[in-house]
């Protein structure tokens, strides 16, 4: 066409670089913003979809309250549109983690690769016992590939009777009617791989941490053979023609809805019924079989018991027999022992005796010998003695005899005398008296003989006594005898005197006597007496002599005897000696014999001892045997009894089980199918909602940028057109049409825009997604992040901006091109100066300095510029306020949430094993000031459009109030009360579900039971969603209420509360313990995305401010170049020239800030509304400091731009400027 023309266009571009670049940059930013946010979200969805497709994530999932069978799978597979249907099994288990236990969902790997986890490291399980885990598990436990993982099954194993030992063996099992729960086949696994679960791509951190995603902490994958199950936990369907569709697209949703409807209409009811019937039938059958088995088993068991009993009895009898035998044996042995003992004793005795005897004998013999010897000696002595004695005795005898003779002589003499006297006297007596006298005499003699005897004795004794030595001991004796005799004498005298016979005789005599013979009588008496006495003395002496003779004879006899004795003794001695020797000899012989006997006896005893010992040993063995036998018997008996008891118990149990089974079967509720699509996966839904909210964001920014772009291009091009006014006129004069002139500027703008748009595309499709990917990575883990290109936005974005900017350009040109060339070539009439409102206040106006007046006038002179600068700055300030406000709002959430809404310090949840005990223990703990048991569960709320949202259900017991634990307030800040039939829901959940209170919502708990809840009010909450209700409500809806968690207020310092909670968590009965203090401290980490958004906003604001201000300033300057050149010519210093311009800029900036601050507040609340983070309701709270900061920042930008424009000002060449064509 017209190369010169084109060259002009080209060179125009080259000549107006600043303007060109500002247009370019604005276009780039705008397009980047526009496409970028969309692209990022689309890329996320694309990447997620790619992942889901590559991992063959299900499109539809069917779950049933009673499990699913192959028949169900077949029925589902047969549906039109279903490409694959496969059943999968999952089971929940506990695993040790983080000091306590965490809950894990263990799923089987599919054979066909359905729902295949994405392998990140290692390898998928290929053998039994291998397991694949997700990142979260490795992070929490610090485990690595190759480590062992232990799973603790949740429910205890099915009760099975223990087969007992020995004979008793019964086995009664009654299977559960109803769905058999899948169970782990083993508990120890080796970690072979780190995978990503396509059903849960949440990365676990950040904002999504507040969304209650699932009941379990971890997900593990094992081979199908490691989980025993009869039914499938879920059936996963993949549809035929959905692979090509993006799963977040409407087409996909429609398709899925269609198939879902098909399932619900065509299959569901039948399959539910079929399953129910099947279970009923199976249950029936099982019960019957079990019953039959039971009967058989019982019969068999009874039999066995009978046998056992018999055996026991026999055994007992045997044992008793054995005992009896043993007793006998014992008796025998004892006897034997006794005998032996006796024998032993005897022998010992004998031995002893023998020995003793021998010894004695020997001793005796010795003694005998000694005796003999002594006897010999004695004999000799005796002989000597005897001889001596004989001699002495003879002497004595002689003496005695002599004495006696003497005595006798005396006595005789006496007697004779007496007799003589008597005769004399008698002779004188009358013959008559003589017989009387004779009588008397006889009597007196009789009476007085003893006296004479005694007297004689006394005399002899006395003589003896006198013969004795003075110290002779016999003296005493003799003396005593003497005394006695004296007494005798006295007595005898007395007797004699008193003798009756005598007296009588005397009397008789006397009687017969004549009277004068008294004296005679006396004499006679005396004679008689004397006679008697002499008689007595004689007789006494005779007696003595007799005695003496006797004595002497005796003594001689004695001596003879003694001698005889001695002789005898000697003979004996001889004998004795002989005997002794005999004895010795005999003794030796005997001794030898006896010893021999004894030895023999010992030997015999030894033998019998040995025998006895053997016998004892045998006995002991026998005893031991019997004892063992007894023990065995006892054991057997005990076992028997135990078994019998167990049996009885088992029997009862089995009966009970049957009964329970019957009851269960009767209670079996109709199957309920739940047909879900991918929106039931929380991570899937959250991707959807997150991208939606960011895309909503992506609506706002491009609008701002678009507006700015349009305005900027309008300004720039207007300025350019004005500058080239004359040129345009020339073109027109040359005959170029408007089209050509439009074309020039449009080309200019198009080039700028186009390049900018391209750059923007690159930024939008590459940089922005990369930036957003960083943010998304915090929330989701998707292995491959695809960068996609959307034709619609990809071309639409630039097209839009191009259109806008070109439109602005055209608009700018239009006003000029309307004019005739002549008009164009004339200088543009300067705008008429106008009076400012302020001028009408003279007293104020007159006080203002001249230059300031100029400034004020200029401000309002260029209205467009005024508007645009103010708008630009306001926008910038608003964006900054928004960014900072967002940050502040997020930060404000923390005290709001954790001090006002959650007023408790600690939340403890039990494992369900013994929660009441745990709660009691905690209540008693010193660190706990107050405790409130509650029931907590994660439930799903179903919204009207099928949208599901997981919330935490908190049930307060009757009589308890949430006051002091949860701050339930409505939107106006008024406190809410929790009452029966008036459940309270958090606002965020209500929004997500499209629900408004009061109303009724469907709640589904973890056991897939559904119920309608009457929600009375909505409460404000920042993080997470909860549903609060009373115990009565819960019981009405779901049944039994048992508190399984507790809220607590602690007395310990906040710094210690975290540690306290950690300590609690490690205990076995505690499933989780969360310290609010710890949540507060960890709060900031969860909002990394927020910070990224804040930086983004700030960056944008800065860029915007810069571009706007820069463009406006440069435009302003170029517009007023002559004016500025003129004041330069007039003599303004550079600084004054700067001030001249900058004052206006700053004033405009100030006005912009004033407009921008409240605008920013509005923007913040709008943005927060748009962002709608998952399960987070951010309160709008902008700190005064943020306002200040934003204002300062804008000011700083303005100043920075001023610095740049100052340089331009300095470069204004006065001369050239004044020379310009005007």
């Amino acid at each position, binding site marked *: 066409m017209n190369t010169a023309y084109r060259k002009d266009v080209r060179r125009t571009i080259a000549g107006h670089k600043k303007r060109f670049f500002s247009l370019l940059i604005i276009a780039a930013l705008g397009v980047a913003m526009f496409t970028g946010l969309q692209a990022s979200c689309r890329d996320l969805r694309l990447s997620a979809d790619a992942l889901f497709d590559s991992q063959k994530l299900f499109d539809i999932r069917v779950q049933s309250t009673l499990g699913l069978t192959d028949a169900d799978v077949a029925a589902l597979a047969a549906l039109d549109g279903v490409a694959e249907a496969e059943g999968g099994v999952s089971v929940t288990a506990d695993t040790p983690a983080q000091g306590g236990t965490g809950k894990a969902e263990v799923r089987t790997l599919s054979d066909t690769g359905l729902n295949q986890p994405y392998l990140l490291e290692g390898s998928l399980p290929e053998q039994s016992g291998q397991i694949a885990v997700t990142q979260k598990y490795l992070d929490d436990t610090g485990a690595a590939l190759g480590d062992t993982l232990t799973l603790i099954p949740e429910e205890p194993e099915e009760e099975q009777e223990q087969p007992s030992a020995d004979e008793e063996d019964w086995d009664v099992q009654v299977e559960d009617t109803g769905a058999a729960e899948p169970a782990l086949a083993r508990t120890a696994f080796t970690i072979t791989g780190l995978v990503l679960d396509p059903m849960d791509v949440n990365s676990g951190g950040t904002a999504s941490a507040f969304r209650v995603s699932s009941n379990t902490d971890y997900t593990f994958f094992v081979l199908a053979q490691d989980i025993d199950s009869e039914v499938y936990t879920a059936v996963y369907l993949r549809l035929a023609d959905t692979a090509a569709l993006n799963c977040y697209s409407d087409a996909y949703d429609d398709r899925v809805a269609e198939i879902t409807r098909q399932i619900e209409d065509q299959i569901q009811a039948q399959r539910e019924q079929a399953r129910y019937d099947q279970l009923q039938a199976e249950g029936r059958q099982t019960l019957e079989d079990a019953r039959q088995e039971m009967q058989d088993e019982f019969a068999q068991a009874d039999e066995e018991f009978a046998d056992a009993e018999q055996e026991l009895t026999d055994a007992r009898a045997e044992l008793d027999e054995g005992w009896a035998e043993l007793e006998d044996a014992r008796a025998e042995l004892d006897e034997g022992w006794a005998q032996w003992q006796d024998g032993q004793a005897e022998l010992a005795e004998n031995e002893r005796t023998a020995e003793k005897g021998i010894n004695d004998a020997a001793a005796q013999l010795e003694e005998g010998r000694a005796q003999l010897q002594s006897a010999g000696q004695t004999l000799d002595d005796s002989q000597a003695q005897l001889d001596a004695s004989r001699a002495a005795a003879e002497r004595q005898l002689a003496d005695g005899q002599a004495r006696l003779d003497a005595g006798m002589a005396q006595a005789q003499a006496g007697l004779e005398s007496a007799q003589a006297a008597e005769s004399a006297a008698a002779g004188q007596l009358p013959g008559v008296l003589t017989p009387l006298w004779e009588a008397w005499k006889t009597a007196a003699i009789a009476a007085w003989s003893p006296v004479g005897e005694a007297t004689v004795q006394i005399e002899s004794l006395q003589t003896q006594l006198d013969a004795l030595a003075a110290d002779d001991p016999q003296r005493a004796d003799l003396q005593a005898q003497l005394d006695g005799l004296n007494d005798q004498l006295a007595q005898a005298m007395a007797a004699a005197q008193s003798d009756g016979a005598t007296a009588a005789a005397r009397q008789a005599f006397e009687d017969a006597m004549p009277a004068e013979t008294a004296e005679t009588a006396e004499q006679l008496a005396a004679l008689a007496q004397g006679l008697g006495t002499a008689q007595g003395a004689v007789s006494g002496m005779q007696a003595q002599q007799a005695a003496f003779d006797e004595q002497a004879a005796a003594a001689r006899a004695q001596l003879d005897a003694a001698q005889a004795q001695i002789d005898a003794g000697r003979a004996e001695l001889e004998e004795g000696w002989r005997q002794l020797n005999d004895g010795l000899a005999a003794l030796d012989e005997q001794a030898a014999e006896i010893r021999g006997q004894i030895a023999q006896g010992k030997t015999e005893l030894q033998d019998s001892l040995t025998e006895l010992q053997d016998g004892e040993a045998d006995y002991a063995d026998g005893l031991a045997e019997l004892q063992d036998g007894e023990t065995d018997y006892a054991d057997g008996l005990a076992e028997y009894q135990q078994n019998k008891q167990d049996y009885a118990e088992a029997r009862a149990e089995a009966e009970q089980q049957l009964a329970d089974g019957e009851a269960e079967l009767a209670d079996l509720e109709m199957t309920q199918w739940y047909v879900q699509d991918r929106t039931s996966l929380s991570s899937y839904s959250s991707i959807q909602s997150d991208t939606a909210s960011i895309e909503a964001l992506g609506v706002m920014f491009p609008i701002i940028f678009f507006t700015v772009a349009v305005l900027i291009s309008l300004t720039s091009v207007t300025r350019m057109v004005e500058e080239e006014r004359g040129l345009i006129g020339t073109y027109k*004069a040359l005959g170029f049409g408007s089209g050509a002139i439009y074309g020039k500027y449009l080309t200019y703008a198009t080039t700028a825009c186009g390049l900018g748009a391209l750059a923007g595309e690159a930024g939008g499709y590459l940089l922005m997604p990369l930036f957003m990917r960083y943010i998304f990575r915090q929330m989701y883990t998707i292995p491959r992040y695809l960068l996609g290109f959307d034709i619609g936005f990809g071309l639409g974005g630039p097209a839009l901006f191009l259109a806008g900017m070109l439109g602005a350009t055209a608009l700018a040109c239009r006003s000029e091109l309307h004019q*005739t*060339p*002549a008009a164009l070539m004339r200088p543009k009439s300067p705008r008429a100066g106008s009076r400012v409102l302020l001028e009408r206040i003279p007293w104020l106006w007159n006080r203002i300095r001249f230059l300031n007046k100029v400034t004020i006038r200029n401000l309002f002179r260029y209205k467009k510029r005024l508007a645009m600068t103010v708008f630009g700055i306001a926008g910038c300030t608003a964006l900054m306020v928004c960014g900072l406000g967002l940050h502040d709002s997020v930060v404000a959430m923390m005290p709001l949430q954790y001090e006002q809404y959650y007023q408790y310090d600690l939340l403890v949840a039990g494992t369900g094993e013994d929660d009441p005990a745990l709660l009691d223990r905690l209540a008693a703990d010193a660190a706990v000031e107050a405790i409130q048991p509650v029931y907590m569960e994660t439930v799903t709320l179903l919204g009207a459009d099928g949208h599901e949202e997981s919330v935490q259900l908190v049930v307060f017991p009757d009589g308890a109030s949430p006051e002091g634990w949860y701050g339930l307030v409505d939107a106006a800040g008024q406190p809410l009360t929790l009452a029966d039939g008036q459940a309270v829901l958090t606002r965020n959940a209500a929004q997500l579900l499209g629900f408004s209170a009061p109303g009724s919502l469907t709640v589904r708990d973890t056991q897939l039971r559904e119920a309608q809840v009457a929600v009375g009010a909505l409460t404000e909450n920042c993080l997470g969603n909860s549903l609060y209700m009373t115990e009565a409500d819960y019981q009405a809806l779901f049944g039994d209420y048992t508190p399984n968690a507790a809220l607590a207020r602690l007395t310990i310092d906040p710094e210690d509360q975290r540690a306290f909670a950690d300590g609690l968590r490690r205990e076995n009965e505690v499933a989780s313990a969360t310290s609010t203090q710890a949540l507060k401290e960890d709060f900031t980490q969860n909002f990394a995305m927020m910070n990224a958004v804040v930086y983004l906003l700030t960056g944008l604001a800065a860029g915007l401010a810069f571009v706007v201000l820069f463009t406006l300033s440069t435009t302003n300057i170029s517009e007023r170049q002559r004016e500025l050149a003129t004041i330069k010519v007039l003599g303004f210093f550079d600084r004054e020239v700067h001030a001249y311009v900058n004052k206006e800029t700053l004033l405009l900036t100030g006005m912009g800030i004033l407009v921008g601050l409240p605008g920013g507040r509005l923007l913040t609340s709008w943005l927060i509304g748009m962002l709608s983070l998952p399960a987070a309701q951010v309160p709008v709270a902008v700190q005064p400091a943020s306002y200040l900061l934003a204002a300062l920042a804008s000011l700083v930008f303005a100043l920075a731009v001023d610095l740049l424009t100052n340089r331009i000002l300095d470069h204004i060449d006065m001369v050239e400027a004044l020379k310009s064509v005007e």
Partner: protein
Amino acid sequence: MSYIEFNHVVKEYATGGEAIRALDDASFAVEKGELAVILGASGAGKTTALNILGGMDTATAGQVLVDGRDVTRYTPRQLVGYRRTDIGFVFQFYNLVPNLTALENVELAAQICKDSLDAAETLRKVGLGHRMGNFPAQLSGGEQQRVSIARALAKNPKLLLCDEPTGALDYNTGKQILQLLQDTCRKEGITVLIITHNSALAPMADRVIRFKSGRVTDITCCDAPTPISQIEW
């Protein structure tokens, strides 16, 4: 029927409340191939008339006939075509495109015309063969004006309208330019109208049109115009 007829043309500017008449019922005529000089003091309406004649401005009232066609009735689009093909304009302040070289400036005009002259040749004709590659900023005023003239000539127009072409030039340069214009008029047979306030140039013209206060006060025809070289002032 003159080649150019300016009949009772009124050009009124209404700014504020008053109406200012740049042309107040001006009428004149120019024959084909004539060299007409328009004289008048500043503000007399000369430029306005030329602008209207050149299709660069519109008349408020009146009629302008060029080669039998009423230019005032032209639509803007027709005016563009008119300007393109029939008019060659030379401005007082050259109005060259600063981004283009001398040659390109001429080409710019030449390339939109159907039967245009060769740009380089035209430049040579105006004596700037050696300066074809220079930008206007590198040319002196006279050179620039010559480029401007070359641009106008290259279009091979019916009319060549010159608005004070020597206004910014010195005496000799001006004379050269005028000579050029005169030669063009004579040789090419192009009708040339020159606006000037220098009445000494009157003899060079075939027709002298005097403006005063927006009217044509006098039209003088001259049979034997004096060559420029002979005119001194």
